[in-house]
């Protein structure tokens, strides 16, 4: 079904304005150009783009796409597919339940950005466009053609008010910029999602499995990218490609399916995650995997506190540190002042319990007051934790934590005869030390996900949301605000302690420097908060995705280095201004943030 037929059905859009694209071209030519451009992009990915293997990825072969060429190929294929679907060709219509045009635009953009980035990177790194083979020119032109065609696709123009000629120059400029922004936004807008035919249950589960497998592939590819250019290209293609799928309505379809089969989807997601170490031949990327898991799990724990209960905790990493230190001290490490070696289940409980105690100690005095006090007290607690741990070294304080050297040589775990430090072979796959811990951490993640889900849907979870939305009204409804908030805060602390106990064993050593407010290496409080805000407050998948992204980006893009935290600070401000609901918005929150923008739309519908 094309967008044109959809819009023809609805009467209120039959306004006088003619439907043109951002670029003036006849619609049928535009559509053909976009589709053909996408197809040509696919073909050009099989050509050689440069003559020398000096550019990483070796793009010199005919017939064998390599590195960035694969990414461009995917972008081109998506463009071509959506283009075909927009012609209404049978068998492709399921691809675009929300209309194809916006999806074409975004996937053409994905291919264009990645291809041009590659071509420019080749020219810059190797010194001049002379280094491009004909394939390089072909791909550049093909993606450009696809993009021009896509942007020329007609769309429904918003009704704009002309600028008031009596306004001052600056106001006129602002008004015109606002109009242009509204037009651009409308160019990428989608129609309503066509209702889906109910499939038999097994087919739906199969689709979920396929989607999860695809997700695992994309994620594994991202972790395994070997050079900066490939990772940047991956981010571009994945970002725009995801946006294209979203505009096509496919993401909404899939989330409808996962909502219908929630348990299957959740178990499937964990099986997919557990399959990750089996896709790796050595422990190098399993290290990244386990660190992502730790970071994402802690972010999810923070999401209970920030996202559900609306309490801003700026020292969350200190609770991770408390758990890690507590577990490390009873782990039998030679540098721990206590000569005890508890089994792991006891150590992890100690870690969680000590974190909880600190959570209550910090929460009890502050949660009776306005939320802002909690923010600053937790910020202080994060810093004081670090200073105290540094001081408890035997010279400037009692000897408890071994000061800046930290507690080192934490012995590897050994559970049921399974040595976590050793390399195992399971069914022909080699599972190294970090992969072992990856499985253990995955279990902790599962616990946190289950706790999050169960508590969010229970009485107390609803109380948290009520408190977050309007504390006064919630109190009037008989919710014991202080108790409910304290439970959220202490629960968040406990989960962080749990993760900390595992983290201590993964990293061998716990030092105060690991637990700072802001630091270049995640996890730290600022990154954790950013992961929650970026991913989406109040959702499960949001912080997991946000955490993975925020871990991978600094890890893969070493050249960001010194400017990472700066970019972060600016990104936080921009995020809060332009997309406060995050990448994966909670439906309720999205409405809350965009109240004003949604309201007129419903009004006009009712009025028409």
């Amino acid at each position, binding site marked *: 079904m094309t967008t044109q037929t959809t819009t023809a059905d609805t009467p209120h859009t039959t306004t006088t304005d003619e439907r043109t694209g951002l670029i003036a071209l006849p619609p049928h030519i535009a559509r053909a150009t976009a589709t053909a451009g996408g197809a040509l992009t696919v073909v050009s990915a099989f050509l050689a783009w440069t003559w020398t293997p000096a550019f990483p990825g070796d793009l010199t072969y005919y017939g064998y796409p390599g590195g960035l060429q694969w990414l461009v190929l995917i972008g081109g294929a998506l463009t071509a597919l959506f283009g075909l679907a927009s012609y209404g060709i049978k068998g492709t219509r399921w691809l675009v339940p929300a209309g194809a045009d916006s999806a074409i635009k975004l996937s053409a953009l994905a291919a264009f950005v990645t291809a041009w980035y590659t071509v420019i990177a080749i020219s810059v790194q190797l010194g001049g466009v002379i280094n491009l083979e004909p394939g390089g020119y072909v791909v550049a032109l093909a993606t450009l053609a696809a993009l021009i065609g896509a942007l020329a696709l007609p769309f429904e123009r918003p009704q704009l008010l002309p600028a008031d000629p009596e306004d001052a120059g600056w106001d006129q400029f602002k008004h015109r910029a606002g109009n242009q922004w509204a037009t651009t936004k409308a160019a990428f807008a989608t129609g309503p999602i066509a209702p889906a035919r109910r499939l038999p249950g097994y087919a739906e589960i199969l689709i979920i499995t396929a989607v999860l497998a695809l997700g695992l592939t994309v994620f594994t590819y991202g972790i395994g990218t070997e050079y900066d250019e490939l990772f940047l290209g991956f981010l571009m293609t994945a970002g725009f490609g995801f946006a294209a799928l979203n505009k096509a309505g496919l993401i909404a379809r899939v989330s409808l399916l996962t909502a219908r089969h929630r348990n299957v989807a959740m178990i499937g997601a964990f099986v997919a995650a557990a399959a990750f170490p089996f896709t790796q031949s050595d422990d190098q990327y399993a290290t990244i995997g386990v660190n992502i898991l730790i970071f994402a799990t802690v972010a999810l724990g923070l999401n209970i506190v920030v996202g559900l209960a609306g309490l801003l905790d700026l020292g969350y990493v200190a609770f991770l540190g408390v758990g890690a230190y507590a577990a490390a001290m009873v782990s039998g490490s030679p540098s721990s002042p206590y000569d005890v070696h508890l089994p792991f289940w006891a150590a992890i409980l100690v870690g969680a319990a000590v974190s909880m105690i600190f959570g209550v100690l910090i929460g009890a005095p502050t949660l009776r007051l*306005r939320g802002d006090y909690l923010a600053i007290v937790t910020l202080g607690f994060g810093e004081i934790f670090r200073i105290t741990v540094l001081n408890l070294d035997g010279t400037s304080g009692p000897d408890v934590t071994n000061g800046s050297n930290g507690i080192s040589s934490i012995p590897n775990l050994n559970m049921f005869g399974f040595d976590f430090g050793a390399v195992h072979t399971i069914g022909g796959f080699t599972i190294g030390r970090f992969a072992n811990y990856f499985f253990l951490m995955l279990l902790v993640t599962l616990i946190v996900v289950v706790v999050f889900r169960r508590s969010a849907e229970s009485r107390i979870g609803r109380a948290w949301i009520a408190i977050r939305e309007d504390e006064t009204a919630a109190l009037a409804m008989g919710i014991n605000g202080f108790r409910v908030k304290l439970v959220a805060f202490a629960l968040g602390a406990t989960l962080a302690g749990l993760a900390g106990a595992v983290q201590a064993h993964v990293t061998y050593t716990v030092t105060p420097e690991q637990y700072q407010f802001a630091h270049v290496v995640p996890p730290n409080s600022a990154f954790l908060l950013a992961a929650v805000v970026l991913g989406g407050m109040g959702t499960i998948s949001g912080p997991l995705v946000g955490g993975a992204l925020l871990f991978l980006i600094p890890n893969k893009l070493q050249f960001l280095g010194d400017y990472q935290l700066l970019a972060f600070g600016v990104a936080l*401000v921009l995020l*809060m201004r332009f997309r406060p609901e995050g990448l994966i918005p909670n439906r309720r929150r999205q409405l809350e943030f965009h109240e004003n923008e949604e309201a007129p739309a419903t009004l006009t519908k009712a009025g028409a």
Partner: protein
Amino acid sequence: MNELPQQLVNGLLLGSMYGLVAIGYTMVYGIVQLINFAHGEIFMTGGFGALTVWLILPGGTTLWLALPLMIIGAIIVAVTIAVGAERFAYRPLRGGPRLAPLITAIGISLALQQAVWAWYPGATSSLTFPEIPGGPFHFGSVTIQTGDIFLLTAAPLSMAILGYFVMKTRTGRGMQATAQDPDTAKLMGINTDRIIVVAFALGAAFAAIGAVAYGLKYGEVNFRMGFILGLKAFTAAVLGGIGNIYGAMIGGLALGLAETLATAFIADIPGMQQLGGQSWADVWAFVLLILVLLFRPQGLLGERVADRA
């Protein structure tokens, strides 16, 4: 205990610096109920502003001549940044969810810290701040360092100016009205947007004076100096009763005294020998904050109920 007078003076000096920075927290909080986390960093940029003026002045300029220019430079930098942050990061979010401005404040604070670290020449480590020449002054058993003379004069003077401004001028009375009831103030013809900008600017100006005092006192400025000091200044504001500008100064003095005395004398308490000394100062200040919140959340002077949600 014969070092007690000396420690009292040290505590009061430290406390008046906290008080200068705390004014910014308390004024902004009193009017828009926002903890401006970036205030500590605005303080820090003020210090760097002053240092920049000193560095571009021709060599051989005496500090007495340079000091007024340095203060003006610090104030210009700090006020510009504070007003810019208000305009672009806080104002668009006003009336939105409560968490939003707090998160942008964190972002601004991180960005400012890192921007100075990355772009100010040599700021990756501490930079030396000019020192006032002349030996320390002795009054009986009390010694006052030359660097503290500035603090000794600037703090009471700025408090007096602020008191006059808030009580006697039209804008000052507008600030009081806005703090009491923003909606009614608006109905009375007060431009509350302007009042909020003035509050941010005034707070930044006092923080800048505090930063110059910090530089002269410790002989250096660094990109991290705003973080802990901002925390403590906020503690001081809470201690004095947040929203009350005299409270900020009194809270600052109380916190400075408590911290200095704890650092100096806590080791004398049997069983706590190891918990004294400078390395524990921050910890005691934080413990004090927790205790105040536990027992007197409205602060020493605050008649306002702390929980106005």
